[in-house]
């Protein structure tokens, strides 16, 4: 029998997996993997605001993520405090705020932390697919610029690239994808979708083109297979996040083995 919720969840997983994998490929190269992970937790107070004031909590999550990203970006531009340290401070502040705002709503807090795909509808899966598609296209447009910034910021500026604006657009797109990804794996695990597909892809890539593509493919496999396994195994868990993480780690382990074998044979 056709299960619409499962279909919508898989559709959402596919969109989020591809976008998180693709955008994550840059975050890992920028040595910002932990930044991506910590940034995702910043969504927690935004989700709480949405639930409290009865608007889409994922909009609240995105708003919090993006505002935090802008604050961090601005402080980092005007001070010498490292990006990682600022994200660390904002992450703990957001987590504390989020827990305070949820109060006794432990079930809602659990959903925010670990995701809830039972609420996914065809409409929001469709919107998520369109938004993720736009995020991928926009990232592809600025991909070369971001790679050049990563190789040498001076080189990028000397080519007329506006580094601050390019980074800001990238942070905006990461915030969008992370906010959407929270529905599947929650704020605690969404960082995984940004990091692990990319590091697995890096183990197997001989060019940037392959790397970005593989990272997106691994993101899709981890998210879709994770949701499917969670559904078919009938686990007594209300959220598929842990299975998504499990599949992703298997992909990463396989990539390590293949990389090790290739190095032995070359």
């Amino acid at each position, binding site marked *: 029998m056709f299960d619409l919720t499962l279909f919508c969840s898989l559709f959402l997983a596919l969109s989020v997996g591809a976008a998180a994998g693709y955008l994550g490929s840059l975050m890992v190269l920028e040595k910002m993997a932990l930044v991506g992970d910590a940034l995702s937790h910043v969504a927690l107070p935004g989700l709480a605001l949405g639930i409290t004031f009865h608007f889409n909590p994922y909009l609240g999550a995105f708003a919090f993520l993006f505002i935090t990203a802008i604050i961090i970006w601005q402080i980092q531009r005007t001070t010498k405090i490292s990006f990682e340290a600022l994200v660390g401070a904002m992450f703990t502040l957001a987590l504390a705020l989020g827990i305070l705002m949820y109060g006794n709503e432990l079930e809602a807090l659990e959903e925010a932390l670990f995701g809830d795909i039972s609420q996914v509808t065809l409409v929001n899966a469709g919107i998520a697919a369109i938004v993720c598609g736009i995020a991928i296209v926009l990232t592809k447009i600025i991909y070369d610029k971001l*790679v*050049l910034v*990563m190789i040498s910021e*001076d080189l990028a*500026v*000397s080519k007329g690239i506006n580094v601050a604006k390019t980074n800001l657009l990238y942070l905006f797109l990461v915030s969008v994808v992370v906010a959407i990804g929270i529905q599947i794996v929650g704020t605690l695990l969404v960082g995984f979708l940004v990091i692990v597909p990319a590091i697995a892809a890096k183990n197997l890539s001989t*060019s940037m083109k*392959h790397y970005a593509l593989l990272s997106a493919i691994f993101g899709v496999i981890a998210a879709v297979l994770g949701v499917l396994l969670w559904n078919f195994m009938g686990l007594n868990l209300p959220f598929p996040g842990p299975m998504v993480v499990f599949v992703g780690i298997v992909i990463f382990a396989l990539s390590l083995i293949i990389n090790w074998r290739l190095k032995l044979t070359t």
Partner: protein
Amino acid sequence: MNPPNPILKVTNLTVKLQNQTLLNNLTFNVNKGTTLAILGPNGAGKTVLFRALLNLLPHTGTIEWLEKTKIGYVPQYVTIADTPITVYEFLTLGNKTHNIKDTLNTVKLTQPDIENKRLGVLSGGQLRRVLIAWALTNNPNVLLLDEPTTGVDMDSEEPIYMLLNDIKKKQKITILLITHNIHIVQEYTDYLLAINKHITYYGPATDIANPLIQQQIHGEPVCVESLRGKP
């Protein structure tokens, strides 16, 4: 003798960041088709000067490039070790219209399949040649090279300067390069600008052989006013 034909005029250039003076009142010209060596101890402001010339830093004084000047820049350090980017992909970043084989031939990188190698597996010398190739992709008329032999073993240093000399002659490019190597200054450059936040010497590169000039570079600073009007 050709009359002076400056492609760059720098007048009273001062760079201050967070109340620290990084460059103080630099005045010099660079003539078209010549090579200017920039010499100075660590922390003298050599890279700061390049960043100011590229308009990457706030400064006072004037920096006047000749109209329609296109600058190619080779930074001292790049972050590539962890990046799976190939030579081909790097050379097409920002400019996809040029012929990669021709660009690689210009910097004498003729090994088969080199364009498909990752930057991270290249030798120091090969990487510097790729960076020079990247700087040449937009057909610049000025090259700024920040210690172009960083990470290159001693035997491979001279061929890189010979290559730059060759490119300068064939493409009529003006070169500004930062170096610590006095032999390179003597052999491959026309003028020398020694700085230690201020100018300590500015004149023909051959003067570096003079012990008095060397003392001037490494000892007391000279009066900048007396250097004005030099090429």
